[in-house]
């Protein structure tokens, strides 16, 4: 069924206790996700990453998550024990982080890391796991998978590193991928190529994708639906194809302040923030 609900989030709140007082990072976010590509867009501090991390229970120790509902199929993600989490993270929901330089283990070969991810969730022998890992590297369009399999992360480029991350996150065959700025550290052309690979794999395997990014235009050309976040609130939800019909002044402001290649050197419109946007 294309429209069955995989993930249901109702009134999600994330609160951080800091020495300077409580920080309300996510304030009442609700959405239902089917087998689709959902974009979450916002500027730094809008709560977009914290929303993604809360779904996977990765909120930092000084943070508190509350939600009326946080359900993945029939699993209640709000009340899992660490042991139960291990059956969900990686296996059923997986996350691609921003920078392959920091999220790959620098002292372990790429092949061993992918095998580790696979064998954590599938009982197979070493030979079969190696075979799978090389197939997966091939699936993310790495030209010489055998060589990359035996390489260390510092020996590959940023674009290649991010493809390795995708391979590692997809090999256990999760149903939902949360990608948090997966291509922001890459050059534009490489960025698009990596997104195309992600797109193909997600489509072929019927996975759902939450794509978190600061780049409204990129997200709307890639996803089916976009949530725009501002100061922890979802201020607008739009069909990606109808971005130009966005109604909220924040969304419009974000689109307007982008420089354009129209030969116009006059000043860019400045985003005037209104206090009422943050009141929900």
């Amino acid at each position, binding site marked *: 069924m294309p429209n069955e609900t995989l993930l249901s989030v109702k009134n999600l709140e994330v609160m951080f206790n800091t020495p300077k007082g409580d920080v309300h990072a996510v304030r009442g976010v609700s959405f239902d996700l089917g087998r689709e590509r959902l974009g979450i867009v916002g500027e730094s501090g809008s709560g977009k990453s914290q929303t993604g991390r809360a779904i996977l229970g990765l909120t930092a120790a000084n943070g508190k998550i509350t939600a009326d509902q946080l359900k993945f199929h029939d699993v209640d993600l709000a009340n899992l024990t660490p042991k139960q989490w291990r059956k969900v993270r990686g296996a059923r929901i997986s996350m691609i982080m921003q920078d392959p330089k920091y999220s790959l283990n620098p002292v372990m070969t790429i092949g061993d890391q992918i095998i580790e991810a696979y064998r954590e969730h599938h009982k197979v022998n070493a030979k079969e796991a190696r075979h799978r890992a090389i197939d997966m590297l091939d699936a993310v369009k790495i030209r010489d998978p055998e060589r990359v399999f035996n390489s260390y992360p510092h020996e590959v480029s940023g674009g290649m590193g991010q493809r390795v991350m995708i391979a590692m996150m997809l090999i256990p065959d999760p149903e939902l991928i949360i990608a948090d700025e997966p291509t922001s550290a890459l050059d*534009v*052309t*490489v960025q698009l190529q990596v997104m195309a690979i992600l797109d193909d794999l997600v489509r072929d395997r019927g996975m759902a994708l939450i794509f978190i990014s600061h780049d409204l235009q990129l997200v709307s050309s890639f996803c089916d639906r976009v949530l725009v976040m501002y100061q922890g609130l979802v201020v607008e939800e739009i069909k990606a194809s109808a971005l130009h019909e966005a109604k909220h002044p924040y969304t419009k402001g974000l689109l307007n302040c982008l*420089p354009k*290649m129209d030969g*116009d050197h006059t000043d860019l419109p400045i985003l005037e923030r209104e206090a009422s946007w943050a009141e929900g």
Partner: protein
Amino acid sequence: MIEINKLNAWFDDNHVLKDVDIKVPKNGSFGLVGESGSGKSTVLRTITGLVDDWEGEILVNNKELGPKRDKTFYRLVQMVFQDPFGSLHPRHTIDRILTEPVNIHGLGDSDARVVQALEQVGLDNSFRFRYPHQLSGGQRQRVAIARALILEPKILLLDEPTSALDVSIQAEVLNLLSRLRRELGLTYIMVSHDLAVVAHMCDDIAIMNHGRIVERASATQLAEGTLEHPYSQQLYKAAGGYDRAVIDSFVDWD
């Protein structure tokens, strides 16, 4: 104002700049675009004297640069770096960061100069005795611009000045840079990976790939999309967002 002829540079055995020619008139704004490793930042770093192994001719104000830069050069040419988190001393106050260049150059009257520089970049006096970590990314980049401006240079070299910032903050900093160029009659060389930023800010643009300028264009040509070199066309198309057919046509330029 700036003329560069047949500039070549090396990092050990790596030939990173190949016959780069650039000409920027007074009060002009020149943009260098390219992907990582294209050599765009190295051009700026060579001009400021941060690259040792280079050959060619660099003329600033019709004066040819030797292997070393002296103080008069740095009064004329200042650079703003990409990362406002890495380019400000974390344990110096904004006041000290701005006063240091004034003292080095023995200009005197640092108090009034600091006040003026902060005002030029749109920061009020309350920022003066804060530390960088107490400022947002956009405010820090304003401080970095103020530090460059405090010596009253005529040329600013801008290395990805807004790529670490949110788009709404980027718009503010780009407007600030445009205004300063108008009001102070500055000359810019701006490096960016973002074609739209450069198209918005610059009159003349050069597209770099693997240490070489592959194409030159005016802002108007860029607006019309009449680029000729296949690499620049690819870069132009990539700026249009996610389009599957376009991506499948990409070629690797390794």
